[in-house]
């Protein structure tokens, strides 16, 4: 009894933080359901919930197309980053070779290079390749990730050497060892890292804004920003578009929340 009374201030503190975290999202959804006459009042529930804001948003922004674009961009990026990273991490943990330290440093240092420091040359490259306003142009500069390499490096470092040696005795090629022995064993790590990379890809903004603003190729963040600049005061419709834009990522989060939280704890952020 005494211990549960002692817990009250703790819970109060946490509930306060949760309210701070959740209220903006709650307000987004509630505002999107309010009819025009009610949107400017601070009512906590819409008196007569309506979907008219959603109809307006869907008719004025190609939300589904934009969501599909984002899905394609984030998925391709994630797969490319995982493939290039697992191969590099395998090499770094499998063999002792000259220059290993140097290469490790080369990979690690890119962590410090912000997009802003390389955006002008990359912008010129993408333009000269004719890839502006294409999904490929958004994807290409994000096909290798230091974050992924370092994360998989730490996952592979503890991989049992005996398993690999047994495979070498069986005359498996190095590529087969990686795909048939190593990969099945680090599947959980790959999946949890993949989820993080996917969320990063989904939320990428600066680069997409620079090279891809054509609505049928752009990711949803860009479409949303364009809608904002057109309809600066259509608050109901803006909130409806904001809600629609975040539904896929929130659904993913709620479905896999434990896994997502654990992967953030395990790998940190970029």
């Amino acid at each position, binding site marked *: 009894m005494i211990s549960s009374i002692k817990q009250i201030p703790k*819970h109060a503190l946490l509930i306060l933080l949760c309210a701070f975290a959740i209220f903006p999202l709650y307000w987004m959804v509630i505002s999107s359901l309010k009819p025009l006459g009610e949107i400017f009042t601070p009512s906590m529930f819409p008196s007569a919930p309506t979907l008219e804001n959603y109809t307006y948003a869907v008719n004025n922004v190609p939300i589904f197309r934009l969501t599909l674009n984002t899905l394609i961009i984030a998925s391709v990026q994630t797969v490319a980053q995982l493939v290039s990273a697992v191969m590099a991490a395998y090499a770094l943990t499998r063999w002792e070779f000259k220059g290993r330290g140097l290469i490790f440093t080369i990979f690690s240092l890119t962590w410090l290079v912000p997009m802003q420091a390389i955006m002008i040359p990359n912008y010129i490259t993408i333009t000269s390749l004719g890839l502006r306003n294409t999904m490929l142009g958004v994807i290409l500069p994000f096909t290798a990730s230091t974050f992924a390499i370092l994360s998989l490096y730490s996952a592979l470092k503890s991989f049992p050497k005996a398993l690999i040696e047994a495979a070498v005795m069986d005359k498996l090629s190095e590529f087969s060892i990686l795909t048939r022995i190593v990969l099945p064993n680090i599947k959980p790590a790959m999946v949890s890292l993949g989820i993080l990379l996917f969320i990063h890809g989904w939320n990428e903004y600066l680069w997409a804004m620079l090279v891809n603003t054509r609505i049928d190729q752009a990711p949803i963040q860009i479409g*949303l920003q364009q809608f904002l600049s057109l309809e600066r005061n259509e608050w109901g419709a803006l909130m409806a578009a904001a809600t629609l834009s975040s539904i896929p990522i929130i659904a993913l989060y709620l479905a896999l929340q434990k896994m997502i939280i654990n992967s953030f704890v395990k790998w940190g952020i970029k």
Partner: protein
Amino acid sequence: MFLSKFQNIKIKDFIRTLNPLWFMLPALFLMGLWTYWPLIKTVFYSFMEWNMLPSSTPEMVGFENYLRLFDHPDFGKALVNTLWYIIGMLPFAVIIPLILAIVTENMNTKAKNIYRTLFFLPMIMPPVTVAIIWRWLFHPSVGVINQALMGLGLIDQGINFLGSEPTALFSILLIAGWKMIGFSTLMFSAALTGVDKSYYEAADLDRTSKLRQTLTITLPLISPMVIYMIMLSILFTAQWTFVYINVLTLGGPASATTNVYYLMYVYGIKNFNAGMGSAAAILFFVLFGIIAIMINQINKRFAFYDN
């Protein structure tokens, strides 16, 4: 002699010695192409004057761009603002999460998980969506924050949070902090789970107070994580705030919310001044790089590791 030695090596063995290279090739190639080569080009452009039009050619101007940076009126402002962003981020990324993590450490797992799921949600939200939501919350006359403040009788008339000088930077910071707080709390909680409980049992036997235990046992043991979160804030706060600045304030009013990363974008992309943009980029890449190395050294020397 050399030839015969060469012939002795079987080609198959030779290919095998290159195995590490084959496996690293995709990552090395992609990073070379999209990170290191552009970085070198940025260094090159920082000594050039060029408006990025295909018809014009870059012209060598030496250190002119760097000198011009220091003369630019927005530069000092961006520098000071960046410092404010970093300092202002520390409560959200370090202080509040640290307190929350310590206070809730012994809570039962079920309650902890529910709280975690909820307060972590902002972290995964798409940034432009977040910007739009907060623009609505901050609305100068009918935003819910202003309505609440007026309802409580704290203010007579709505505050233009994003449009007036003292509040704009704080508002941008609040949005970035809102995203960060759940993540940091989680990182500290994870660090706390790794702390050996027998230290506390010993301290309890000595009748050391809980506060003293926190200061003398908990904090030193999770100091690597504290330093790591401080480093993240210093290195990345200016990058995290970029999207909110670009969507909500465009650096204004009167450069009140601009920061060094936003300035690079304005110089390079908006003003088509590749030289100035590149000079700013290189300057801050080097500066943040030095800071990162320094923090790393501090971490090695002072952080306490429980072996």
